Every structure is written in structure tokens, then in C-alpha cells.
């Protein structure tokens, strides 16, 4: 297993370099102009000077190599300096965002907490809801519970979050006035009161996203349970006189979870990608909002860095899912 993991990690390096080049080319060839959003009153020659000062005058391969140097050499060195208090020295230019003119990595670090709190929490909540629903739906297939579960899943699947988000804002913020409609990213949890406020402002975005996540995962769980419930080993277990509870929750559930765990692991990178629409609707201003604002503003270094980090996470969690599969299912061996 270890050699397999190492082999996969080594293979990931050329893949990631290819991905970074493709992202860079895609962004660069797409028509986007960082000065396009400026007011009409700013004359064309000033716009040209702004573009030059952003380095857009250099040829494409120089800009790509510069980004590679900044991202793969300068940023890690900078991180080492910060973490261990070393002084490596040298004048290193970091990856700078065009919109804010500040280091992209600092922006990402700043955005990470609210994204992990809101989107991450919604994933956890979604999983916690989905598993029992999937289990009961499968065990009592075609019962009213299964029907309702199927209906809710279909709603969660098919109704987009920009609709459910605005709907819950109108109901719970405007009509009832229970929760704030705008997320306060500067809020610090210091005592019980502030913790309650944090819960209040997280409820709506977490609920909207959790519904979406739960819909997906509960269907997987249900299908996987159904596959296993008809297996011979289940009949054997029952024939041995085991309690129904043990049969379902120990024998069937453990085997059914194997593919579901993989699906859950593969979904983790999405948390870091943020939920672009939900973050916009609730003004959470996390990584998803950073990405969309950067795309709108033609801020190529930020888009490039963010999408590349997402690519790294996706490759990493693919590997995690494969390894987990091997750990959970003794029938699967990679070496």
C-alpha cells in the first residue's frame, strides 16, 4: 500500500504541472481584460498603462514561468519563513492579485475559515442526515418514509441553491426576522452569546447546502444498502438467529458504507472550492466568492492560483478515496 501511495504521489507531479499549464493557457486565451470594469471616464491610454504595470506586456511563456517560480518556489519559502521564523533572505516576489494588489495566498488564508465553517459544516450535516435516511429508505423500501425521502432528495437535487437560498432569506429574515440575511465574517466567537450569534448566522446557508449534499449522499447510501440487503450473507446471518438490528446495522451497513465513504471522500475538495452561489446569496465571502469576483475582474493570478489549488486537492482526495477503499475492503489490494 505504501509503495502504491508513493507511486501515485510521484505520478501526480507531472499531472499537476500539465494542469497548471492548461489552466494558464485557458485563462490567458480567454477574452478578459482587468481594466474592462473601470468607468468609461478613464481614457484608453491610462488603461494601457495599468495593463503594462500588471505585467501584461510580457510574452505568455515568461508570464507562465514567472507564475511557476512565484508559486512553487517563492510561496513555499515564504511559508517556511512564517511558520518557523527563519530568515531565508532574498527579495522574493509573491503571487500578487491584480484586483487587490496583495498576495493571493494571504487572501486564500483569510477566506479559508468562513468557507470551512459554512461549507464544511454543511457537508458534515449533510452526511449526518443522509446516512440514516438512506439506511431507513432502503430497509423499508417503498414505504411512506422511502417515498418522502425520495421526494426530498429530488427537491434537494433539482431546486438550485440560488432559489432555496433567497426563499429562506425571505421567510426567516424578512418575514420572521429570526436570522441575519448577511453573514458577518468579522464576527469572533468569544463567549456563549457570540457563539449563539455564530450559530444563528450559519443556520440558513448551512441548511441550504446541507439539503443539497444530503440529497446526493442519501441516494448513494440507499442504493448501496439495497445491493447488500439481498446478498447471501444477510440471509445466513438471519438464519443464524441474529437480531434484525445486528444484521442491518453491523453486517449490511458496514459493507454498504464502502462505496459511500469513497463518494464522501471524493466530495471533500468541493468544500474548499466553496459554494460559489450560496456564498454569494448569504454574503459569506469565502473562497467561492473570491473565485467568482476574480473571474469577473479578470484577475488572472488569483483565478490561476485558486483553480490550481483545487486541482491539487482533487488529485489528493482521489488518492485518499482509493487508499480508503483498499483499507475498508480486504478484497482490494493494489500491490
Amino acid at each position, binding site marked *: 500500500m505504501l509503495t502504491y501511495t508513493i507511486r501515485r504521489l510521484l505520478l501526480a507531479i507531472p499531472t499537476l504541472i500539465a494542469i497548471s499549464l492548461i489552466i494558464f493557457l485557458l485563462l490567458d486565451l480567454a*477574452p478578459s481584460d482587468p*481594466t*474592462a*470594469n*473601470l*468607468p*468609461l*471616464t*478613464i*481614457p*484608453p491610454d*491610462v488603461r494601457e*498603462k*495599468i*495593463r*503594462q*504595470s*500588471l505585467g501584461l506586456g510580457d510574452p505568455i511563456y515568461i508570464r507562465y514561468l514567472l507564475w511557476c517560480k512565484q508559486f512553487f518556489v517563492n510561496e513555499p519559502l515564504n511559508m517556511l519563513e512564517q511558520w518557523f521564523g527563519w530568515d531565508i533572505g532574498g527579495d522574493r*516576489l509573491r503571487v*500578487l*492579485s491584480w*484586483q*487587490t*494588489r*496583495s*498576495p493571493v495566498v*494571504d*487572501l486564500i488564508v*483569510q*477566506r479559508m475559515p468562513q468557507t470551512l465553517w459554512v461549507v464544511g459544516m454543511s457537508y458534515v450535516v449533510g452526511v449526518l442526515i443522509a446516512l440514516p435516511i438512506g439506511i431507513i429508505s432502503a430497509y423499508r423500501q417503498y414505504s411512506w418514509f422511502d417515498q418522502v425521502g425520495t421526494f426530498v432528495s429530488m427537491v434537494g437535487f433539482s431546486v438550485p441553491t440560488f432559489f432555496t437560498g433567497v426563499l429562506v*432569506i425571505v421567510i426567516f*429574515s*424578512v418575514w420572521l*426576522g429570526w436570522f*441575519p*440575511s*448577511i453573514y*458577518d*465574517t*468579522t464576527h469572533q466567537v468569544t463567549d456563549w452569546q457570540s457563539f449563539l450569534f455564530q450559530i444563528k448566522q450559519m443556520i440558513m446557508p448551512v441548511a441550504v447546502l446541507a439539503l443539497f449534499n444530503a440529497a446526493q449522499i442519501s441516494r448513494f447510501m440507499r442504493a448501496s444498502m439495497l445491493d447488500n440487503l439481498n446478498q447471501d450473507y444477510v440471509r445466513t446471518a438471519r438464519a443464524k438467529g441474529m437480531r434484525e438490528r445486528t444484521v442491518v446495522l453491523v453486517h449490511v451497513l458496514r459493507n454498504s458504507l464502502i462505496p459511500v465513504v469513497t463518494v464522501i471522500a471524493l466530495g471533500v475538495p468541493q468544500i474548499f472550492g466553496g459554494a460559489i452561489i450560496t456564498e*454569494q*446569496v448569504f*454574503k459569506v*465571502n469565502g473562497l467561492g*466568492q*473570491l473565485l467568482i*469576483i476574480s473571474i469577473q*475582474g479578470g484577475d488572472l493570478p488569483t483565478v490561476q492560483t485558486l483553480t490550481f489549488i483545487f486541482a491539487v486537492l482533487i488529485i489528493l482526495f482521489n488518492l485518499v478515496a482509493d487508499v480508503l477503499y483498499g483499507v475498508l475492503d480486504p478484497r482490494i489490494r493494489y500491490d
Partner: protein
Amino acid sequence: MLGALAAVAIAPPALAERGSDGHVNIIYWQAPSTMNPYLSGGTKELEAASLVLEPLARYDQDGNMVPWLAESVPTVDNGGVSADLKTITWKLKEGLVWSDGSAVTSADVIFSWKYCTDPEGGCAQSEKYNDVADVKAVDDRTVTVTFGVAKPFPYGPFVGAQAPIIQAAQFADCLGAKAPECTDANFGPIGTGPFKVTEFRPNDVISFEANSNYRDPAKPAFATVTFKGGGDTAAAGRAVLETGEFDYAWNMQLAPDVLAAMASKGKGQVVSAFGTLVERIMINLTNPDPALGDERATAKHPHPFLSDPAVRQALSMAVDRELLVEIGYGDAGRPTCNVLPAPEIYKSTANDGCMAQDVEGAKKLLDDAGWVPGADGVRQKEGVRLSMLYQTSTNAVRQDFQALIKQWWADIGIETELRNIDASVFFGGDPGSPDTFQKFYADIEMYANNFDGTDPESYMANWECKQAPTPETQWQGNNMPRYCSEDYDALVAQMAQTGKLEERAKLAKAMNDKLMQEYIIVPLVDRGRVSAHSNTLGGVVLNVWDSELWNIADWNRMK
């Protein structure tokens, strides 16, 4: 006169105590990316920065200039501007300090000019410093700006939210190519304004606290400000007008009925103010026929029927401007008959007849000019049919306008074909594209434009003969109708030599009237700025000539 007005505007009511009104929440649905207005031309950044950074003089809600960091506004009359209009001398107020306690000196003013004009800095506001040859310190509080040419309107540098004074000590190592690397300075500039930055989260939220060194000891009334950014217009409006979470929301570009429904909740109110933004129809005086090849839409070929003033006048008379405003903009618009609708002293009243729609009059005018309806109802003369292509950018309101106007023109016997082009292409100015508003490969086009600040000199010069976009100028230029009149050019030249405000106003009005009365441009709607504030927030004076937050020092909580 300006001085007297300024004294009234600045006079402190001295009722409240600094910071006594607690906290105020502001929401901008576009989030500011930086606090340095020189590194971003965006309105959101200018306005966020205006809480901290201030210019020598700025504009009030009526477009009058008021001294801000300067003692008074220099003019030729008070000797501050030289007789040859080449130098202007500003004097800073006495005892001004930065929020860190150090004194504001002429060195800071000179530095601000150097910072923005560094060729490698990519300063977005460098146009404000056009023609500045030198800025010299006379003493610690006095600077003289010297222009390379005579400047009848010398109030570009250091005036308005676009060109504030930054602290030389803080930005000393940030000149030119180094500018973007000074993240701390760009995110937390030290200023003279009523607030200072405590935390800046780019593209998200800014926290401010009252500047303890602010020059008026009684202000600002608020101790802290949260400036949240992001989301969408409707959400921002909802947060102020429906849930009351926020006190002030900027730029409420919403459909009139949506905004009215929100305002009816009674938590806040919608305020609007009008500047110079005019939605207008441009008439092509040249022939855009593709058969003409390279000479298409150039002055070599006059338009077959739009060169007839009677047709142009009929187009304007057939339009019901009141209805357009009602459908498209509500409180955020008002009908206008001028392409130069403001400030007040420049506003002509000579063309107000256009307010009333006059379909019968338009028909008669065309009849008299010899354009008679053919078998299909479209008027024609000597084989020329009144059939036009009408283009604009893709935008729901503009497409509504197109459909309405097409109908009105059909009523007077003019056939119209509609076309809309994506805004980034239409306004993109790419000389390789046939669809830009400069190339104007159509008979009629519609868009909105305005000018920065209050001085219309360069705006009115847009319709000079030489400003016409042509293949020789790579289709650059602002004279979309390709209007060419010696009289008009003479007025433009005269304005460039005239320093007295009243004289300048007369000239600007004359130019506006000429364009209107020859029906070169058909103005439709004067589009205003709309914002919303909570009923408990006092002191808001909406200002379209400067930052909307220009008087935040005077804001207070109404009890």
C-alpha cells in the same frame, strides 16, 4: 462666492460628541478590493477610501467646489490662479494632522502627485494630473501647481475623491513598480478623514474606527463603521429596507417596482440624486451602407436621409420621454432635453419643448419636408425609404426602450430594425470588431455617458469635428454622430481660453443648444444615482459629484 458657500457647508453644528452614536453599517454590493484609489479606478474603491483619504477640495451635492483640506478654493479673482491660467496655488488648513498624529505638509501634496504620475505605477487616476509640469512647495502649507498649458479649469489635481492626498512617509517606498507590493499601506492608508481602517479584508469587509486626530473634535458621531461588500443589489436593498440589518446601501439599480415594494416596508427610504449621466440616441450623419467598403460610416458619404434635419427632428418629437422614465428607471430617472443636464449653471432651458410627445407634429414635419408614406406605410422620397438599423448594448431596460421607440417611429412612418450587442463588445473599442459604438455601422445607436467632476469642457469637446472616429484614427474618438461644424469647433476653442465661470457656462450652454437644436443627439433620460438608507440614519446628503460618503463625518443616529 465659493468661499462663502464653503463656510456654510463646513460650519460644524457642534452638537454631538465624537463617537457618541455607536456603530453604523454600510453595504456596497460590489466589494472594495483596495483602499488606495490611485491603484483602482473603480467607484467602490474610491468611495471606501473617501472615509480615510481626503482631497484639497471636493464637490458638494450641487456640484459646487468646497475647500476640504485647503483653506479656500483658489480662483483668478482671489489671486490663487495666475492670470495666464498656468499656475494654481493651494494653501492647507492650519494645524492639519494625519491620523497617526504627524503634521500634513506640502511635501505630502507633492508626493501624491509624484506617486500618481510615476510612469511605472499604473496609476488609474493619472488623467487628473494631465498637463501638470511641476508642483512646488512655497512653504510648509502652500503648494503651487504649474501647468504646461493654460488651464481654464485647473481643478484636476488634488480635487475630488479621485485625487486625494496620501501620506508621503507611509508611501515613500511605494513609488512606481513598487506600488503593488506595499500591501499594508494600500490596505490601511493613513489619512486625514473622519475614520481610520482597523481591519481590511479585500473584496469582503472593512472595519473603521473614528480618527481621534480628526480636525473637528465633535465629529464623527459614529465610533465605528462596518463597510460590507459583496452579494447583489437586491440583497443589499433588502438588508436596508426590509430587514434593517444595514443602515446604508449604495447604488440600488433595481426595477422601479421592486424598489418601491421594498421601501413600502417602512424601515428605510430611497434617496436619489442626479448627475450628468444621460441615456441618449446618437444619430449617424454618415452612411453606414456596407457597399461603401472602407469608406463606410465616414464623412465622405453623408447619410441618405438622416442628413435631413427634418427627419432627425421628427425622430425626437415622436418619443414619449415620460413613459420611458416610468418604465425603465422610476425615481432613478427623469426626462431630459439636454445632453448636458447638470450642474445647474450649465443647464439650458432652451430645448424643453421636447418633453411633450408630438406625433402629429412629427408627421406634419415629414410631410412638409416631402417624405410621404408609401404603399407599406413607410415614408419615402425620391426612392429613399426611411428604414433604419437601431443598435445598443444588451441590457433589459435598453431593449424595452428599443421596442417602445420602434413603435413610436412606426407611428410616424419610419421603419426600424433592432439590434443589441454584448456590452463588452459594444463598448470594448476593439478596432477589429465591426460592432463597436465608435464604428457605428448602424443608423441610430443608444447608450449612456457622463463626465467626471463638474466641468464640461472636455465632454463638450467630444463633438468637435476632429473627434469623429475614422479608419485613420483606428476608430478612436467620441464624436459618434460624426458631427462637423466650424461654429461648434470655434465655441470649443473659445471655451479652452475662457477662465470665468459665468462665461464658460454660457459657452457650454450654447454648445448644448446647438447639438440639440440641430438634433445631432436625441437625449432621453437623465439617469440618477439611487441609494437607500435606514430611517434612523441622519445626515445623509447624496452626492453624485464626489464620493457618496463625502459627508460621513456629519452622519448621525436619529433618536
